[in-house]
């Protein structure tokens, strides 16, 4: 005989404002099998939880329904409370009368009626719940960090410093990411490389970190605690073991006019190269696309110049397989291609550059050794126009969101320019100055007040060349007047966008992403570093535009999540897994194909003499994530999902 306790939460006024909780409790009390039906202001708070426990003990309840917020919010809380009172936690269900009812309705009577329907439906379900036991799975204590920018490096170091093994995978030939390209960093103006490169070296030399550069993750299988990861080690054509990084090959390479990716096309590199002088590892790779030997079959000058024979043109891509317990995704961002703004002339006029290109000009290790010079004629510009939101906050041509860092770096660019070119003048066209952060507003004020940068609130409509100048026509909306400035250089504060292959990569590793391709967190506020897939965490700009402090914070947060996971030998998994009725299974293998987790195997049913009777599907509970895809596909209704069985769902529907 079912004895169900129903606990109706007011959620402050979130529910009680639209649902008459007293009336609801009285209605539900009438429902068959309901032993207790009470309402309370906050069941999630300590006194509320205590009252549920007390009711379970006193009334010997066989099941509990908490009519409250979404189960995503507090299902775990209430199940834990039930377990503490001696009830199997899976005998507790949540009736969502907040998101599904009070928040979306205005009519109190109808909302109350709907809340009763939702609650009744869950009472009917819980009557058919089974006592489930959690599944224990082992945890491989080895983390994979994908991306060797500042976020990836931070996450790897934090995990490794706590004594756990880390594999750090970077697809470029060197660690560093975008931060290595920057000159000085706001708001303190410390040199980016000076603070980053020691971290890069530390990561590369750490005994707990296995560094794989020029490598890409090609597949991820398995589940939290037990991922199987395949990594492609791209052929470098340089033997990492023996190369000393002397650089002779780079000096001798006849191809020296290749546009450098690291210098954003402003500088040049050879076909055998390291991205920058402080690369980690400081060992070159051969760019197959531009190498003379790979194009014509002749050259090999680098091979002859190498005194230790480290160059091998026969090298092939290699694949390595890794057993991994947790993954931190820190794959970073790209800058939007500004060619979409025809009116700014990016790509047409060489002196219209992006903010990232300006960083390379201002960087001491850059192509101009830190001198601000025009790409067109190498002259020092005396007047620079900076255009903010060149892509961001522009639904028509760019992206709708704010890239968050541009106000700050544009202010920094103007400041650096005034420090380097004392007689230089800079103008910044802006929409709003967004300088929220520690020391940020002070920084932009300093740019305006001490460095004399002129801020013009308005947009630029056209840039055109005149003699050796770039004419910039914009509007100063505060004065309500059009302005035309004769500039020597124009710098666009380009939008931060996801990596071009971000969506494809998200599919490869099995995480969700938003309309732009930024990876989705499990909960924007409460679980901002977890991805939607258990055991995969996010760090840095792959999730949303961020500055360095935010990226580093998120990386450390991800690392702490990984370490919490690694703090136990085994992991308790929810027993919500599918199972198959082998007697009725028709063996069509639709479920095998439909399963996104490869959790369904083919199983032979043999008679006593070992003769095959039939082959059926069999679910591996360790791999099953309980998504239910197989159940919906199965035509013969042979598959069922624990915790959401056909009987439970049917009762739930019929309870409405």
């Amino acid at each position, binding site marked *: 005989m079912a004895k169900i306790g129903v606990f109706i939460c007011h959620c402050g006024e979130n529910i009680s404002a639209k649902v008459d909780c007293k009336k609801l409790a009285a209605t539900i009390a009438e429902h068959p099998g309901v032993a207790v039906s009470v309402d309370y202001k906050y069941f999630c708070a300590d006194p509320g939880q205590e009252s549920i426990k007390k009711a379970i003990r006193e009334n010997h309840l066989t099941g509990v329904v908490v009519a409250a917020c979404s189960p995503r919010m507090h299902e775990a809380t209430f199940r834990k409370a039930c377990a503490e009172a001696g009830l199997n936690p899976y005998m507790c269900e949540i009736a969502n009368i907040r998101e599904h009812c009070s928040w979306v309705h205005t009519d109190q009577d109808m909302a109350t009626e709907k809340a009763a329907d939702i609650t009744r439906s869950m009472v009917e379900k819980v009557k058919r719940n089974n006592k489930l036991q959690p599944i224990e799975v082992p945890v491989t204590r080895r983390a994979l960090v994908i991306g060797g920018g500042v976020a990836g490096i931070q996450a790897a170091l934090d995990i490794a410093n706590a004594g756990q093994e880390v594999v750090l995978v970077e697809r470029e030939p060197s660690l560093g990411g975008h931060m290595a390209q920057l000159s000085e960093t706001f708001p303190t103006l410390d040199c980016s490389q000076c603070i980053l490169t020691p971290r890069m070296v530390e990561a590369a030399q750490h005994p707990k970190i296995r560094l794989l550069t020029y490598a890409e993750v090609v597949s991820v299988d398995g589940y939290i605690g037990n991922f199987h990861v395949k990594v492609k080690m791209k052929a470098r054509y340089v033997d990492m073991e023996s190369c000393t990084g002397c650089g002779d090959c780079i000096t001798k390479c006849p191809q020296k006019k290749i546009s450098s990716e690291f210098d954003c096309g402003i500088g040049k590199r050879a076909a055998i190269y390291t991205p920058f002088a402080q690369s980690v590892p400081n060992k070159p790779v051969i760019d197959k696309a531009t190498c003379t030997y790979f194009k014509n079959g002749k050259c090999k000058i680098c091979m002859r110049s190498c005194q230790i024979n480290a160059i091998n043109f026969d090298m092939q891509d290699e694949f390595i397989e890794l057993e991994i317990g947790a993954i931190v995704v820190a794959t970073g961002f790209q800058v939007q291609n500004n060619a979409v703004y025809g009116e700014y002339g990016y790509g047409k006029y060489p002196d219209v550059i992006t903010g990232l290109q300006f960083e390379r000009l201002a960087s001491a290790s850059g192509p101009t050794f830190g001198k601000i010079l025009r790409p067109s004629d190498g002259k020092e510009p005396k007047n620079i126009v900076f255009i903010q939101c060149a892509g961001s906050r522009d639904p028509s041509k760019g992206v709708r969101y704010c890239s968050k860092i541009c106000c700050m770096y544009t202010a920094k660019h103007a400041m650096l320019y005034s420090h380097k070119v004392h007689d230089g003048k800079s103008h910044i066209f802006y929409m709003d100055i967004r300088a929220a952060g520690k020391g940020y507003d002070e920084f932009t004020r300093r740019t305006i007040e001490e460095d004399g940068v002129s801020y013009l609130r308005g947009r630029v409509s056209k840039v055109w060349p005149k003699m050796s100048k770039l004419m910039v026509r914009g509007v100063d909306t505060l004065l309500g007047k059009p302005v035309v400035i004769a500039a020597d250089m124009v710098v666009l504060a380009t939008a931060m966008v996801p990596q071009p292959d971000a969506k*494809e990569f998200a599919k490869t590793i*099995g995480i969700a992403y938003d309309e732009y391709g930024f990876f989705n967190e499990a909960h924007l506020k409460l679980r901002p570093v977890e991805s939607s897939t258990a055991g995969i965490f996010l760090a840095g700009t792959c999730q949303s535009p961020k500055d360095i402090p935010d990226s580093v914070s998120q990386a450390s947060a991800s690392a702490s999540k990984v370490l919490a996971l690694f703090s136990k030998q085994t992991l308790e998994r929810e027993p919500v897994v599918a199972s198959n009725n082998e007697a009725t299974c028709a*063996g069509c293998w639709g479920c095998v194909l*439909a399963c996104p987790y490869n959790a369904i195997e083919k199983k032979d049913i043999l008679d006593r003499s070992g003769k095959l009777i039939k082959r059926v599907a069999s679910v591996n509970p360790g791999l099953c994530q309980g998504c239910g895809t197989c159940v919906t596909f199965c035509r013969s209704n042979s598959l069922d999902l624990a915790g959401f069985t056909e009987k439970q769902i*049917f009762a739930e529907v019929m309870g409405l």
Partner: protein
Amino acid sequence: MTIQETYKARVKKLLASGTVKMVIGYKPGTTADRRRPHFIRTPEEADQLVLDSACITNLSGYLLSEGLLSDEKAVAIFLKPDGIRSINILAAEAQLNSEQILILGFDSNDNQVTALEGEKVEEFTTLIESIKEQAPEALKNPLLEQIEGMTPKERFAFWQGEFSRCIKCYACRQACPMCYCRRCIVDCNQPQWVNTSSHTLGNFEWNIVRAFHLSGRCVGCGNCDRACPVNIPLRLINAKMAQEVLGAFDHFSGMSHTQEPVLASFKKDDSETFIL
């Protein structure tokens, strides 16, 4: 020699040489224009074989008779192009090994029966590809277009009228080569998802389930339509679903014996973002 005689001679040879253990074909039925399945085990039994334009039933379902294929011996079967596509689907769904099936292909147009070249299912790929190309036109049907032109209310009333004759005999299920489950979902009563009564709800439930279970699998052979004792135009529902999967997923059932089922497979480049 007529095509019937040619095939008869071939069947006798196949059985006499032991190439196949059985040939599934047609023999005269209860009336002059009806044919019934003929399970031929000896060359003598082949004398009764009939092959003419009245041979319209898709015989492929008989291959799944309990134990028939378990000894791994070859079976030959008379099939029209739709039946050949059924073999591909059944092979793709692991219900049979297409290597074990020897196809005696034929087609009939304007009361003329013609032979189809090939024995193994792969040899008919070009033929099936040409059928797919013609499918958008071939699937068109005046009654279907008339139904599509109706308002949802009228359409509901139309089907309610048609289904009101249903007596839940499940002859449609029995006749369909794709309905091979050992236990059909309608026979599952814990819980009873599909109402077995012959009232509006039960009739709709059964036919909607049937339409979904056959979408991307039906080859349009018409076995269900002909089996229905109360003449419900079942084929229209399946033709509509075939149009849908062809339009939405470029999926045409029975293209090859490795074709993935349309409702259980997904592509990584799918435009829907919920596909991970």
